[in-house]
């Protein structure tokens, strides 16, 4: 009887965990292992249904294909640029909103709206704004007297166009994190600095930024991971074009898998993406643990 009770006590927590575990097993654990497994096979659904084990051949194929390296370069540009601009703009707006202003919560809420919108809708909105003939952006560009670029068709404009839309959509996350961080800095530090005659800039550089450092690291990693795997926005804005100029790794993987049905190769790409995200994720968890 006593043994049974003890058994029940150790079992109880796991009973509570069971539904979540079962779901995560089906939708996360099994698929992850399965994807890794698929990446060792040569399996194309269009040409042959015969699955053959090829070891690391698919990885070798990827690493020797020029489109992968081009795609990786595009992904890196997008990741770095989006994270950078989201951070700079988000920091500026967070500092602005951290002042003693009236209706601060309303202003804050307004700046967070873009990040709440369906990403697919963000893509469509910007596609409409970027439209060469009828788009509002080109109307203003023409008004200032410049020639009107084909934002989403011209190879040199298309990446900046995506970066602008993505930054607009997501700088709200940076605001959210940094504003919460700013508000946890004790006001007395600023008062003391002010008494010592520290200028506004000095207070920012010597008090605000150092104290915000952990939050900044967390938000930078989070944004990097998300920018690394942008999909919906590119899907609606350009579909990866023109001439693969915006085909980042997510688009490449999607196309390899669901347009060409080369499952082995797509799985290898997916594993690569997963590896990069996990690598960044480990640092992310580490910083969160430090901060808590």
């Amino acid at each position, binding site marked *: 009887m006593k043994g049974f009770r003890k058994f029940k006590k150790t079992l109880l927590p796991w009973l509570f965990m069971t*539904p979540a575990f079962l779901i995560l097993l089906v939708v996360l654990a099994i698929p992850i292992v*399965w994807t890794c497994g698929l990446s060792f096979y040569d399996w194309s659904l269009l040409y042959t249904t015969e699955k053959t084990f090829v070891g690391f051949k698919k990885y070798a194929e990827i690493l020797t294909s020029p489109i992968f390296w081009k795609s990786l370069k595009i992904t890196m540009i997008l990741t770095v640029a989006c994270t950078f601009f989201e951070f700079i703009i988000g920091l500026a707006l967070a500092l602005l909103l951290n002042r003693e*202003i009236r209706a601060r919560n309303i202003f804050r809420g307004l700046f967070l709206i873009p990040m709440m919108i*369906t990403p697919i809708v963000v893509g469509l909105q910007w596609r409409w704004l970027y439209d060469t003939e009828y788009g509002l952006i080109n*109307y203003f560009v023409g008004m200032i007297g410049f020639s009107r670029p084909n934002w989403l068709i011209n190879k040199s404009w298309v990446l900046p166009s995506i970066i602008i839309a993505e930054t607009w959509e997501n700088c709200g996350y940076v605001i959210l994190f940094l504003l919460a*961080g700013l508000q946890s800095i004790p006001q007395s530090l600023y008062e003391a600095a002010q008494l010592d005659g520290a200028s506004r800039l000095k207070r920012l550089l010597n008090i605000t930024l150092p104290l915000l450092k952990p939050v900044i690291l967390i938000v930078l990693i989070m944004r990097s991971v998300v920018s690394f795997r942008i999909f919906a926005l590119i899907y609606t804005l350009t579909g990866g074009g023109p001439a693969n100029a915006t085909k980042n790794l997510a688009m490449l993987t999607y196309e390899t898998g669901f347009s060409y049905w080369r499952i082995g190769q797509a799985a290898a790409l*997916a594993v690569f993406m997963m590896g990069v*995200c*996990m690598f960044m994720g480990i640092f992310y968890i580490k910083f969160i643990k430090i901060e*808590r």
Partner: protein
Amino acid sequence: MRAPGKRKKQFKVLFYSSMIILVIIFLFPILWTGLTSIKTRVDALSMPPVWIFGPTLKSYLQVFARGGFNTAYINSIIVGIGTTVLTVIAGSLAGYALTRFRFFGSHQMPFLILLTRMFPPLSLAFPLFFMFKEFGLLDTHIAVIISNCSLSLPFVVWLMWGYFQTLPTELDESALIDGCNRFQVLYKVVLPMSLPGLVAVSLFTFVGSWNAFFFPLILTRIHAKTLPVQIAGFVTSQEVLWGQVNAAAMVCLVPAVVFNLLAQKGIVKGLTMGSIK
């Protein structure tokens, strides 16, 4: 003494008016979508753009008359509710266990769960596709609901874990003494007390599912298509009907923004990963 006060007032007027201008510029893409959606076809495509025009709801009527749009709208609601119910039940149970019991891995698990949010949905796509194909579940609500859980459940566990930590364990103990078992404690004492948090988390989960694009894209064809997939299909045709696209965009974004704003207050702490004490 009057001059500085006056200057301060001038500064204030300047500050708030520049803030308002900044907000208008920032939100302009949304305003423009809203304006385009209530313009006639001719007004929408006129250059220079018309700012004053007779508004019309024609684009909205056309969008809802389009084949499949109503179905997609209902599908999005069904999938949203399904995902929310499933994740909130599983998430509260797990969150409760993680805050009230010590067991193997109970300290590390929340962080491990947070790590799963880093997975690109793409790396789960092929197995999920084959799995649902095997069970004949492609193009069904269930497939989309279950897949959406991979994105939302870890986060709901994390949010509930954070939320339940703020509730004192003394209440649990007194309920246990009164003869409740652990499940009864959860749904008779803890959950009712967490109602504001539960509502916020539910709204947030619903919006997450509402906005989800990738899984519905690969798992649905006709019957279970959700709104984002349906709308994304609007622009692939040769001629883009911008009035309709913008009307559909409004129909999709308004619930997302409203629900999210309602949920904001309750979950900001969880959203920032508890990174701020």
